[in-house]
């Protein structure tokens, strides 16, 4: 397809585009002429026109929503899993400009690597007073237990990131150095996949440098850090967990790079080596790409209050048995107070002038600088000298005279704790809004990886980056935490672009692996509970639909006679053991019943409510995000979508019923996907075990509520039971007569061919536990096998007729006794399974030894 002829010099799109005065305009020069790198893009957008762009943009939003690209905002009630904000207009950078920038970034990366290596090693910089000792000794990120540890290959910083801003003269400045666990590279990659999908022809025609090769080199260089000589080093990505702001990215990168996603609880240190706890036992770990801040990584030697760390990790690193990227302690130079010293350090350590300047920074620990800062406070931004300090930046221009006085005093008291910076004037790039281009300030985060270059240490720069834009036109604050958005960054390639996919880069043949032995115990645990909660939600939905149908159909407020029994079952399923529900009231009072049901459906905080189960499903789904398919993930997200509450109609039975009907579709889809699209490995077995346990348990509870005390209107009760347990059709196909107790009990309890019977669940459970890893040399059955076989035997030996018979007191005592024993054995089975495979108890501190403090007054911190 050929492009339409070039539009007029000033395409309509940017005719009304008014750049911010005083800021560099990325898209056009002062004379209004488009910069070359932007020409094709502007023409293309112009040709497409607002409607086509909107259409494509809607498609992109859907991808973001469905792929679950999220960013967690701390302290925001809506914060968890906020959809990622992405603008459709990429930031364009020309090839020549990028070449210069790339060289400067490599120089800076090399410089920071040299500095951090010295400070944790020979420490010449302090001894020669090249760097004030304050910047190290007063720095909370100087980790004393890590001093003297030489990381594998002497490499401290495998991945660095730099936040760049362009000043009004068009020059790039570094605003932040990120040396410890830089975030955003995965978002940059996801941005690229989405934008190249909605602008495929433009992407192809302008020749955009691809990102995949950078990630391949990063992956290979991380694997090469392995201290163990092995063809297949085990690399894990250590994440603080699903509550971290960038958890999406952790799971995404782990999957993309082929690393195991691990939380601290998945790892353990034995004999100064790191292992992953898996179902098959302990698996050695060679390399850790960490996204946990270094001071949190080892509660034994670093922060004792950390629940995100692995006890003994520092010793394992010191013993050289594991490579950690970036090395523990690298956060030390992630501080703006080092910036003023970089030009001199660059000349001294590299023999070169620093190519990329930092934003003008004064560290107040020096008398001359302190004087300047105190005299110019209103023009400066005051920040903490050390990253990790909770002080937010203070803009001198926004302070009153009294506040300035106060700030001056604080700085003078402890000058070494503060830096001052010039306010950075950020350049502007266009964002798409209201059918047109509008200027926004932005900052560009770029990534540099340490890689091998023909056996020598070299660096690779990601050709692109994560551009973050301000939320409002006049705002200079660019932070995803404060509601800003992001942009893809297109670096134009100087030569024709060759397609490159990470999957094709495998140079060595991959050995065939069948069973997922590296399944971390925690993942198996989450799969098990995912199965349980999905099933629990589905059972609850069936029950609630049955109740609501009866509420809407009956004109009498009392509903049908079996309704009381259904309420009993509901209270068994959802009632908190501490707050019993009076089901008699619900049966009598229609309005009270609706209020109760609305609570059970929508209240997230209510015990075992439908909403809380669906929430839990989401949470568990995000933990195993790297283990389930994209489609499965989308289905899980649809469950929550179906439950979106409409406050005005929450007491309207028809509305609630519609919500429940909508839920039925993702439930069915999930069941289908998990059976047909997941390999039936250990992860799947735990998922299935969870479902089976939960389904059997629900059937046992329902039969107890509906059958043990026969109701005068038994046929109606039996009908209700068959319908909530989805066995109505099976019953009718077998028995052409009115519903009776004996065949119902047989079908729901004993019939091993009915996929909705208790016996069928037990059969499947037995099948699953027999396939789990265990000591095969042992001929004996495991305790959980024995437990499930004993339940199965009790059903096989039972006589349906005897179970259906009522005793002189009018009860089905035999049935009651059997259901009670199953009701006790099922949780016992679940516990056995847990203690054998899933226990991953977080270590907890044995606290500090008290001095004269009483023994019982110690704080237990986790």
């Amino acid at each position, binding site marked *: 397809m050929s492009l339409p002829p070039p539009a007029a010099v000033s395409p309509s799109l940017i005719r009304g585009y008014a750049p911010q005065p005083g800021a560099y305009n990325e898209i056009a020069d002062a004379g209004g002429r488009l910069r070359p790198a932007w020409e094709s893009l502007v023409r293309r957008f112009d040709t497409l026109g607002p409607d086509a762009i909107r259409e494509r943009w809607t498609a992109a939003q859907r991808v973001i929503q469905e792929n679950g690209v999220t960013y967690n905002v701390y302290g925001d009630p809506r914060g968890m899993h906020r959809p990622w904000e992405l603008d459709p207009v990429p930031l364009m950078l020309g090839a020549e400009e990028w070449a210069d920038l790339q060289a400067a970034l490599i120089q800076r990366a090399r410089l920071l690597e040299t500095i951090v290596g010295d400070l944790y090693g020979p420490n010449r910089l302090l001894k020669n007073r090249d760097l004030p000792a304050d910047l190290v000794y007063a720095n909370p990120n100087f980790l004393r237990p890590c001093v003297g540890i030489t990381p594998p290959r002497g490499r401290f910083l495998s991945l660095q990131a730099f936040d760049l801003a362009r000043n009004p003269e068009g020059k790039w400045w570094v605003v932040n150095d990120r040396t410890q666990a830089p975030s955003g590279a995965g978002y940059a990659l996801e941005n690229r996949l989405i934008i190249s999908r909605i602008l495929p022809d433009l992407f192809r025609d302008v020749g955009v440098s691809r990102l995949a090769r950078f990630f391949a080199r990063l992956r290979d260089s991380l694997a090469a850090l392995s201290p163990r000589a092995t063809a297949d080093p085990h690399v894990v990505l250590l994440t603080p967990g699903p509550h971290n702001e960038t958890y999406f990215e952790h799971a995404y990168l782990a999957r993309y790079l082929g690393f195991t996603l691990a939380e601290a609880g998945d790892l353990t240190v034995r004999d*100064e080596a790191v292992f992953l706890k898996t179902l098959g036992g302990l698996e050695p770990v060679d390399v850790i790409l960490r996204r946990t801040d270094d001071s949190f990584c080892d509660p034994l030697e670093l922060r004792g209050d950390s629940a995100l760390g692995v006890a003994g990790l520092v010793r394992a690193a010191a013993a050289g048995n594991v490579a950690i990227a970036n090395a523990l302690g690298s956060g030390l130079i992630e501080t703006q107070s080092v910036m003023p010293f970089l030009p001199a350090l660059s000349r001294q350590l590299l023999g070169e002038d620093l190519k990329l300047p930092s934003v003008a920074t004064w560290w107040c620990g020096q008398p001359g600088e302190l004087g300047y800062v105190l005299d110019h406070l209103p023009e400066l931004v005051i920040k903490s000298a050390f990253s990790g300090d909770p002080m937010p930046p203070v803009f001198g221009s926004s302070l009153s005279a009294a506040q300035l006085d106060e700030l001056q005093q604080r700085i003078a008291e402890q000058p070494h704790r503060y830096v001052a910076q010039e306010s950075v004037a950020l350049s502007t790039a266009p964002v798409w809004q209201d059918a047109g281009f509008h200027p926004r300030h932005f900052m560009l985060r770029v990534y540099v990886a340490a890689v091998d270059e023909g056996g020598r240490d070299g660096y690779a720069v990601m050709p692109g980056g994560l551009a973050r834009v301000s939320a409002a036109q006049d705002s200079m604050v660019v932070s995803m935490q404060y509601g800003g958005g992001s942009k893809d960054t297109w670096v134009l390639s100087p030569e024709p672009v060759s397609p490159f996919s990470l999957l094709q880069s495998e140079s060595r043949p991959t050995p065939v692996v069948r069973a997922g032995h590296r399944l971390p115990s925690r993942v198996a645990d989450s799969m098990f509970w995912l199965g349980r909660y999905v099933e629990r939600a589905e059972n609850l939905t069936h029950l609630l639909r049955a109740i609501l149908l009866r509420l809407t159909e009956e004109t009498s407020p009392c509903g049908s006679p079996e309704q009381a029994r259904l309420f009993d079952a509901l209270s068994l399923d959802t009632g908190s053991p501490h707050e019993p529900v009076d089901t008699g009231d619900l049966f009598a009072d229609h309005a009270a019943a609706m209020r109760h049901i609305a609570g059970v459906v929508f209240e997230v905080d209510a015990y075992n409510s439908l909403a809380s189960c669906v929430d839990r499903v989401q949470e568990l789904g995000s933990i195993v995000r790297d283990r389930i398919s994209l489609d499965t993930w989308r289905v899980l997200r649809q469950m929550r979508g179906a439950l979106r509450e409409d406050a005005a109609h929450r007491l309207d039975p028809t509305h609630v019923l519609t919500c429940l009907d909508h839920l039925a579709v993702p439930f069915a889809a999930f069941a289908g996907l998990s059976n047909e699209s997941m390999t039936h490995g250990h992860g799947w077995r735990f998922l299935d075990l969870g479902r089976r346990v939960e389904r059997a348990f629900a059937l046992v509870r329902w039969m107890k509520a509906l059958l043990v005390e026969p109701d005068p209107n038994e046929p109606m009760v039996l009908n209700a039971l068959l319908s909530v347990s989805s066995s109505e059709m099976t019953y009718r196909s077998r028995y052409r007569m009115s519903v009776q107790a004996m065949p119902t009990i047989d079908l729901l309890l004993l019939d091993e061919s009915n996929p909705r019977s208790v016996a069928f669940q037990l059969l499947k459970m037995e099948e699953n536990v027999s396939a789990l890893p265990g000591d095969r040399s042992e001929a004996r059955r495991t305790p959980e096998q024995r437990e499930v076989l004993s339940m199965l035997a009790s059903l096989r030996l039972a006589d349906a007729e005897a179970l259906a018979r009522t005793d002189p007191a009018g009860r089905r005592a035999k049935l009651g006794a059997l259901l009670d024993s199953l009701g006790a054995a099922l949780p016992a089975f679940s516990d056995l399974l847990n203690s054998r495979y899933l226990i991953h108890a977080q270590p907890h*501190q*044995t606290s500090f030894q008290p001095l004269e403090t009483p023994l019982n007054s110690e704080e237990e911190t986790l």
Partner: protein
Amino acid sequence: MRYLIRHDTEYRYTQPATLEHTSAHLQPRAAPRQTCRQHRLEIQPPPLSMTQRLDFFGNPVSIFTIEGPHDRLLVTGHSLVDVEARPPMIDGMSQPWEPLRQALRTDVSPEGLDAYQFTFDSPLSAGSRELRPYVEQSFSPGRPIFDAARELTSRIHADFAFDPKATDVSTPVSQVFAERRGVCQDFAHLMIACLRTLGLPARYVSGYLRTEPPPGQPRLIGADASHAWVSVYCTGMGWLDLDPTNDCVVDTDHVTVAWGRDYGDVTPVKGLIVGGGQHTVEARVDIVPEGDATTVAT
């Protein structure tokens, strides 16, 4: 003075612990007036692996791992330590505190650089505005540093009540200062925070105090357990140890185990366990001058 020291730390768990990582600062370090002649660490149950090394501050530290179910951990340090008497203080040796503080900023000698790091805040002992008036009462302009620090030691002793029930290991200095009570660890952290408020180098010393006092002298507070006090760097005189809990200059009744920025750097025994349920911990210290036992026997 030669001391025979036995330090037991016993953890008991309500449920079996299956894995335990422990770090111990129990071996008395080398210090200017102190030599550790012998040291032996006994651990029950025996550890799977153990590393011994010097930490950043030069303190010996042992890190060990115990595997397999156990409901009790007993760590015992046996040490034999010689402590020499402090050289007498000569009047006029101590210089005004402000020039000392200034000189340290540019002193890149190994000793100066080492001392400088102790002027900065640490997690458990940070300087603050609130402490400034209190510490400035002793640190008047031009006053010799040792006189001022000695007076501060006495004032903390006089102004603060020894109260084992008032605080625990996590009580912040600000609370100790506001409530005017605590134990030796709190007084040490408070005094260090006071000195750091002025930018003076001060470190935390963990150690022992002899259990039985010499004949005719009162028993000191902090015996039978780990003790803690403060060391202040006085340029020209080196580090001088002061004990605010007992209002004294440290001499031969104190045995140094380890020093650091605060308690967190030199915790005698700390660890992490998997399993274990609830736990209790008990510590016992016996420190007797060598020869005392035989004296009694004969």
